């Protein structure tokens, strides 16, 4: 259905282009339409000026000569021609208007597709970088750096769940120190972890909404916190801060939430790898003892 509709729209655009006098119309271009519109109105103005000139000349003829030439009928004829000419210009202008609208719509669609491709490409790059790292500490730094690059943030932190606490594992910029602990449910990150809902904060966080909030030693205009959840298991919370004077939007929050899904997967893999490595190390430790025994 979409294809058929697209063909119909393309046909409409070509018809409008033909009516508007853009016979060489191959690639849609707003500039070509504007140029054609200028030409059209220049011609219309010239044509109407010529008509006005003829009408004035005919009206200035002496009565005798006017009778010979049939000036009255000629004047009416010229005015009829002018009317038809104006209708022609009006039809062209209508076609140009429709064409402008269609081409603007195409540009909007192209821009939306380009933006989406850019976002997907950034997320893929971030995903590649994250999947290339298996050491947890290095991975958390990569996640934080990538998130800040993606959203033009100045800083932030990654907190991981440890029993009933959230522990700050990686920081960027002036935020809480590494190792800082918050109970699940306390403060912004605790709230996000408990509810598993992304949060966008503008200005200072409200202590009523976020009980157990700790005072920060610096102020940020805008910040976002998203839960890191993989297969229904909470891994931690990712926080990012906007530079002074800039506010994050719901659009940024959505992008961070999508990014967090990949980050949570990478963290789960890194944790699994750490656990396996510890397991192997324990087995290797047992081997000499068994050989000795």
């Amino acid at each position, binding site marked *: *259905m*979409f294809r058929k*509709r697209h063909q119909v729209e393309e046909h409409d655009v070509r018809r409008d282009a033909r009516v508007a006098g853009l016979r060489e119309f191959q690639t849609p271009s707003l500039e070509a339409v504007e140029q054609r519109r200028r030409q059209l109105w220049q011609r219309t103005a010239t044509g109407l000026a010529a008509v006005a000139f003829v009408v004035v000349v005919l009206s200035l003829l002496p009565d005798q000569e006017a009778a010979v030439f049939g000036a009255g009928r000629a004047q009416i004829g010229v005015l009829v021609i002018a009317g038809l000419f104006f209708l022609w210009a009006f039809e062209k202008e209508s076609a140009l208007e429709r064409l402008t*609208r269609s081409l*603007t*719509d195409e540009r*909007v*669609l192209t*821009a*939306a*597709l380009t*933006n*989406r491709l850019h976002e997907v490409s950034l997320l893929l790059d971030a995903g590649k970088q994250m999947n290339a790292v298996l050491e947890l500490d290095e991975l958390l730094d990569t996640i934080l750096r990538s998130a800040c690059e993606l959203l033009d943030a100045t800083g932030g932190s990654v907190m991981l769940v440890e029993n009933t606490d959230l522990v700050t594992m990686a920081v960027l910029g002036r935020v809480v120190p590494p190792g800082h602990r918050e109970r699940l449910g306390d403060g912004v990150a605790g709230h996000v972890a408990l509810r598993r809902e992304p949060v966008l904060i503008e200005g200072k966080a409200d202590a009523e909404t976020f009980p157990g909030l700790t005072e920060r030693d610096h102020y940020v205009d805008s910040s976002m916190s998203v839960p890191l959840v993989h297969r229904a298991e909470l891994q931690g919370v990712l926080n990012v801060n906007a530079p002074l004077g800039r506010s994050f*939007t*719901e*659009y940024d929050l*959505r992008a961070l939430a999508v990014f967090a899904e990949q980050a949570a997967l990478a963290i789960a893999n890194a944790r699994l790898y750490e656990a396996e490595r510890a397991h192997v190390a324990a087995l290797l430790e047992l081997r000499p003892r068994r050989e000795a025994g």
Partner: protein
Amino acid sequence: MGIHRPRVLIVEDDPDTLVILRVNLNASGIEPILAGDGRTAIARIQAEDPDAVLLDVLLPGVDGWEVLEELHALGDPVPVIVCSGKNNPHDIQHARDLGAVAYLVKPFDIDRLVDVTYEAVRAKRPRIVVEDASPAVEGLELA
């Protein structure tokens, strides 16, 4: 026989949703025009005077709320239907305060969207002739 098709501006950043809404509105006798961000939306509203606006809230740069605030501040009478993924009372009230005529929660039924759009168009132009008009909905509501 009707010749005037109401012109509706779709403001949406997601290309798939843009195309789906464009095709469906077109098939329902509405002439859709598109904007992918807030700035383009305001420019097209001022330049082309649409009969109604379908406004997504999540937009890059100038977001849907800012567009609504600007239209409200300008006193622009164009009926705006806010489309959002969130169904929280605060947002619904905020949209109402800023003059939106309806609030639709995504994912929405396309027939319902068409009905609400026609009702919004009628609110701007009391008597409008359309091709293949969908049945009217009784009164607008924030749903």
